[in-house]
């Protein structure tokens, strides 16, 4: 049973700091060996989790959701009204998406998602969060200077556009519905989904026009 004792755990962390090897790979290798030996871990299950999130559970899921929202106004309404139920239509509910909210970009509004306190992310539809999302720089700056951060991603936001930042402080998770770009009239969902970058669903990408070069992932 864990103790919920902050001082005790802070002390354990200092002990670990003093005794663990510096190399992260060595740390993890020893932990894995120990857990297997203690009967607390099945290596094949670890392999399976990694495979699942490498091949299947990732931003392509979110892109499918966005493409349907672009194509089907009734679905978009359901997605904005109750995103958890709407992604369940695809069978995409899962880790960290029990309470999902979809926020929509428009000509006048740009949305940007961050977790300043840790690394909350809608894992079951976007997969493993990129490192920059979990890094000090993004967490510190996204809430205070979103336009400067977006500029580093190559996204320029006009003065007339309101930037809405969503700091994931509770168990709600946020996904951005980017604007459907011009020039995609009549495209089917698969073709549309190919335009939807991961970053556009976090808010660090905005213009998804088929004509643009080198989309930021």
């Amino acid at each position: 049973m864990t103790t919920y004792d902050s001082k005790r755990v802070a002390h354990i962390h200092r002990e670990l700091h003093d005794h663990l090897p510096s190399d992260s790979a060595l740390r993890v290798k020893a932990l894995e060996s120990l857990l297997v030996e203690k009967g607390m871990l099945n290596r094949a299950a670890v392999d399976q989790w990694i495979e699942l999130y490498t091949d299947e559970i990732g931003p392509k899921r979110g892109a499918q959701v966005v493409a349907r929202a672009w194509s089907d106004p009734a679905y978009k309404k359901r997605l904005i009204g109750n995103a958890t139920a709407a992604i369940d239509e695809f069978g995409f509910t899962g880790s960290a998406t029990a309470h999902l909210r979809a926020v929509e970009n428009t000509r006048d509004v740009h949305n940007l998602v961050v977790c300043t306190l840790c690394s909350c992310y809608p894992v079951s539809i976007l997969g493993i969060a990129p490192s920059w999302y979990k890094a000090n720089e993004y967490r510190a700056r996204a809430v205070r200077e979103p336009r400067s951060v977006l500029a580093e991603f190559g996204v320029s936001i006009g003065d007339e556009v309101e930037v809405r930042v969503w700091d994931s402080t509770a168990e709600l998770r946020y996904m951005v519905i980017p604007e459907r770009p011009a020039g995609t009239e009549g495209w089917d969902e698969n073709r549309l989904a190919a335009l939807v970058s991961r970053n556009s669903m976090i808010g660090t990408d905005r213009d998804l026009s088929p004509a643009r070069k080198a989309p930021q992932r």
Partner: protein
Amino acid sequence: MDGPHDLGGRQFFGPVTVDEPEEAFHSDWEARMWGIDQALSPVPGVNLDWWRHVRELIDPVDYLTRPYFDQWMQIEAALLIDSGVATIEEIVSGKAATASPDLEPPIGPEKVRAASKHVTRYDRADGPPPSFRVGANVRANAVGAPGHTRLPAYVRGRVGRIERFCGAHVFPDAHARGIDRAEPLYTVRFEAEELWPEARAADAKERRACVHLDLWESYLEPA
């Protein structure tokens, strides 16, 4: 807790690394650590908020410098030691020297797909009703909490507007001490001018911006 994790609005961090490879995992050990965290036998009493707090308690310099999944390793190590499941010597050597714990057996590979669809809800239908109405102005507490809390320093003492009531959700300050108690949760909108002194300047570069946070009722007072 006023810790190193409370990064929102801290100034003069450098540029964001935008040219990251697209792969989910950037190295084998990161993938292993992530997978271990999904697959290991649960340590009794550990929940998401206590797990987060254990991360927050990492030495402040380590928190800001050690790689992300390396910190996950240290969280799990600390929880194993805290619970008496492993010793620090075992963690360092990777070799068991004490008896195996009597825990729920670990998940096998055949159950991973089903587990990936598992959803943990944090809303509680029997929670208390909300005291604030949508559109009401609220001020976030000026003083934080000594332990785990999800009220970031950058909104403390600032006034925002209730944008949405989200239902009663498990209160993290209590949950991190093992108590499952729900409180009304609200999405609150704060204007940039209320949060950041430089946004008040006539020539502010960061114009027309706001930040939304999901905040529990006891973090707020009428304003």
